[in-house]
């Protein structure tokens, strides 16, 4: 593929992906409000459009027209940079995530992802680990004790759970023998005994998935691990001093991270875009995308379900859970997977 075509294709793919991702972010907020509403025996958003479907657009407009306050004692450069850092890294990590196989247009093979790199998984981990700075700097630059506490909690929590998260993925890496997300998905094709799909979660990585799930909740600061923004003790945590679009950027970063984590879980443990294919060729071409989206949706629903069910951890419980339970379990899972792979 010539360089010019490559650049044009990449720009188009990035634009499409960005629009899809931001729409997904807006509608996962809607979904969360709606589902949590029904779980709590109320309606959720229902006034703007049918089933409140236009609520995200109304919220976006509201954020745009709200007064953009900057408190007087903040450290201005970092106060402005922090939400941008959060949202940029949250949106960047989606660039290496493959959504399906490739299509061929005008003789060029175009894969369903922006960049097919052979260290895709490491790339996602690296970019998400940079996202910590958004939280930490927001908390520090706000010059507010609640924000600072939230920022400190957030960065400590994210650094601690990153280790368990990384270790939980190594089991999958041992089984597939590659860092490339595409190769990991390809290794999960086929079935056991003809009907159980050969996904990693049915392939000895159930404990790995459990650890990944716990660590991912903590990484994205979601209930039951949402201590950086615990309303009952910290007002709103690291984004207490933020208003209007700057606040919305933290919100977008959080939901984009949820979607990324869901995509990663789908790719690593649930066979990515693999699923039953049937029907005419056009349907067969689009079904992988559908299976991928459906799996990510299930993951997002699980997030919301857990949010509607569980209370928040205490801070010492959070740290003890991460270091004394998840980390040893992850190491045990790693050793067991390594032994099993060598023996069989």
């Amino acid at each position: 593929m010539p360089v010019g075509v490559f650049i044009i294709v990449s720009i188009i793919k990035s634009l499409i992906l960005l629009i899809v991702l931001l729409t997904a972010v807006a509608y996962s907020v809607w979904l969360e409000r709606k589902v949590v509403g029904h779980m709590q025996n109320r309606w959720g958003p229902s006034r703007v459009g049918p089933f409140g479907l236009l609520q995200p657009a109304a919220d976006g407009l509201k954020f745009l027209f709200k007064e953009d306050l900057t408190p007087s004692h903040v450290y201005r450069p970092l106060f402005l940079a922090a939400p941008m850092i959060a949202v940029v890294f949250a949106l960047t990590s989606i660039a290496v995530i493959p959504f399906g196989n490739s299509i061929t247009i005008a003789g060029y093979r175009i894969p369903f992802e922006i960049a097919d790199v052979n260290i895709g998984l490491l790339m996602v981990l690296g970019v998400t680990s940079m996202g910590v700075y958004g939280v930490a700097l927001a908390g520090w630059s706000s010059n507010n004790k609640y924000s600072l506490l939230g920022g400190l909690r957030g960065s400590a929590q994210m650094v601690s759970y990153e280790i368990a998260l990384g270790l939980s993925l190594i089991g999958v890496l041992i089984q597939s023998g590659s860092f490339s997300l595409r190769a990991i998905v390809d290794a999960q094709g086929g079935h056991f005994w003809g009907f159980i799909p050969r996904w990693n979660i049915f392939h000895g990585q159930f404990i790995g998935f459990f650890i990944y799930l716990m660590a991912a909740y903590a990484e994205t600061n979601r209930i039951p691990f949402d201590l950086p923004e615990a309303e009952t003790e910290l007002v709103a945590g690291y984004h207490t001093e933020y208003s209007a679009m700057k606040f919305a950027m933290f919100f977008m970063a959080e939901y984009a991270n949820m979607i990324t984590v869901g995509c990663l879980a789908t790719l690593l443990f649930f066979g990515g875009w693999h699923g039953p294919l049937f029907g005419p060729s056009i349907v067969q071409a689009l079904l992988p995308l559908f299976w991928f989206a459906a799996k990510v949706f299930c993951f997002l629903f699980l997030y919301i379900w857990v949010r509607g069910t569980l209370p928040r951890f205490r801070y010492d419980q959070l740290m003890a859970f991460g270091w004394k339970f998840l980390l040893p379990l992850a190491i045990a899972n790693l050793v067991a997977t390594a032994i099993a792979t060598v023996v069989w």
Partner: protein
Amino acid sequence: MHLALFLIFAAICVAGAVNLLAQRHPINSALSLIAVMAALAGEYLLLGAEFVAAIQVIVYAGAIMVLFVFVIMLLNAGEEEETKGSRVAIVLGVPGLLTGAVLTAWVVVRYSAGEPVALGALPGHPVEIAQLLFHDFLLPFEVTSVLILIAIMGAVVLASKPEATERKADR
């Protein structure tokens, strides 16, 4: 294309390093260091060392620098003051550094073999690095990890106050 990217990353790297020294506030210096680390990761990528680049971002930019920022935030370190010593350091240091840089560049240009290393000529793929670490140099690698473990245990022993253990014994 390759050269242009190299120059961009190198410029970010040098600018970040200079900014690191010029900034008064420790948190700005720490952030400049993060920029330097990230730009270095870009340079590693251009050399075909993807794994090293990813580890550079994950370990240095993502973990170690978080601890730096964390400590600065916890101690609430303020702006540095300019002392007589720092003025002397500027007067002597800047010309000294420039001379050193020019000399190094001259020596490298004059006496190096000339041919730049081709892309992919050196090991950079994760498989090759794993082969080196876990096969060819397994013993030194494991010994290093034991050394780090001993250092961690030493830090824990030094950091735990004796009164705390006594109080526990009393209970």
